[in-house]
């Protein structure tokens, strides 16, 4: 009954719009105003029937649900609801900043009790930061007794070794990877030497 009333109301709206607009549009034309209104009513109704086609197409293609409860009841158990209810929310508000940082940035220990590299990585990072600071300090040293290029080269080589051995895991991985990487070094040294002596 609801749908019949809705459709009737919809068609009457179309007839009303057509009946009002058409005489206005036809005011300058040599057409009887009442005739224009009658035509407008018919065209408006037909137009609103045409407009119903996409709605009908959409409804007819919607998946049929055996559940005829209202949508708010039907969707009460949704995937999102299940997901959200799975996340524990206890104590979220009372977390301290340290706990927040730890939860978001400190990796857990390995589940299989394998050795975790967390402390190693932090240590290597601190070493890299310190060496960088020392390097910059040395570069400001005006009255150095020796050429500062020598300690600077050694320190930056140490940094490279730290990154390659620990961050790139060459210390723990198969020796073959180290050999492949080292294989390119003679080439690098030759290029450096040739370019440095060339005029």
């Amino acid at each position, binding site marked *: 009954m609801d749908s019949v009333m809705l459709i009737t109301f919809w068609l009457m709206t179309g007839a009303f719009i057509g009946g009002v607009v058409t005489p206005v549009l036809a005011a300058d034309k040599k057409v009887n105003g009442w005739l224009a209104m009658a035509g407008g009513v018919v065209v408006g109704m037909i137009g609103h029937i045409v407009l119903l086609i996409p709605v009908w197409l959409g409804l007819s293609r919607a998946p049929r*649900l055996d*559940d005829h409860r209202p949508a708010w009841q*039907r969707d009460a*158990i949704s*995937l999102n609801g299940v997901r959200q209810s799975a996340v524990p929310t206890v104590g979220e508000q009372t977390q301290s900043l340290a706990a927040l940082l730890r*939860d*978001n*940035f*400190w*990796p*857990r*220990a*390995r*589940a299989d009790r394998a050795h*975790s*590299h*967390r402390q190693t*990585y932090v240590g*290597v*990072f601190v070493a*890299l*930061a310190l060496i*960088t600071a020392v*390097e*910059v300090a*040395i*570069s400001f040293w005006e009255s150095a007794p020796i050429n*500062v*290029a020598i300690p*600077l*080269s050694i*320190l*930056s080589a140490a*940094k*490279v070794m730290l*990154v*390659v051995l*620990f*961050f*790139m*895991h060459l210390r723990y*991985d*198969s020796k*073959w*990877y180290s050999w*492949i*990487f080292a*294989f*390119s*070094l003679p*080439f*690098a*040294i030759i*290029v*450096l030497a*040739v*370019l*440095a002596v*060339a*005029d």
Partner: protein
Amino acid sequence: MSTDVQLLADDMQDHLAPIEPDGAGPDEVHMPPPSIAPIIVGFGAALFLLGLIFPVLFAVGFVVMVVGVWKMAHFPEVDLHPNWLTFLNDRKLGMWVFLASEVMFFSALIGAFVAFKIQEGFEEAHEVLNLPLATVGTSVLIISSFAVVMGLEAIQSGDRRVFRNWMLATLVLGLTFVGIQAIEWAELFNHGIDETTLFGTAFYVTTGFHGLHVLGGVGWLALLLLKARRGDYSAQNNLGVELFGLYWHFVDVVWIVLFTVIYLIH
């Protein structure tokens, strides 16, 4: 179980890959189907390089490369078993061979810079170089390397949230480094050091290629983050993250050397 929950479960089955038990043997590894995407990337790269001669091909090659990379990003993550002959992981082996070739590439650039420096001294350029800014950039890059290893450690212990936080931090730090480089370039250019000076040529080529590598890494990292969002990586399957880490640390290593050679030694 009511019907709609059953429908939902059926729907999810269509979208989720079948879950494999831990320790699936070599027979149960699902290889990705053959793909044309690497060929597209190679073709795009060739067009991109031809752009050196015909500049219009720059854009075309770049677009083709992006399309290929985008297709490759949809590959499933497969953690290959070690090769039966070498007992090495083929993907990792390929990455190390690539890094070895990169060592040769950058050694040529750095060698040229050092040779020019020995001949010319570059003393006047040293007055213009912004050492404090470059120190900040170096720190940013080292911190980003640290972020990558912490992210890798997190995903290896199955902690996806910590993993994604560190990777996001890496993305921000990488972009910050590129931004700092842009400021440095603009500063030098305003001081009259352009491509007509010897220092300008050496500096822009060397740091420019390094910056391109950082940008490439940032693009790779963005794809990696999309895959992480999709849930591709786990405690059992994280080689993709490790390979990205190798590349990113290598770019960091190159900058450690460049920073010493360009900024510190004079």
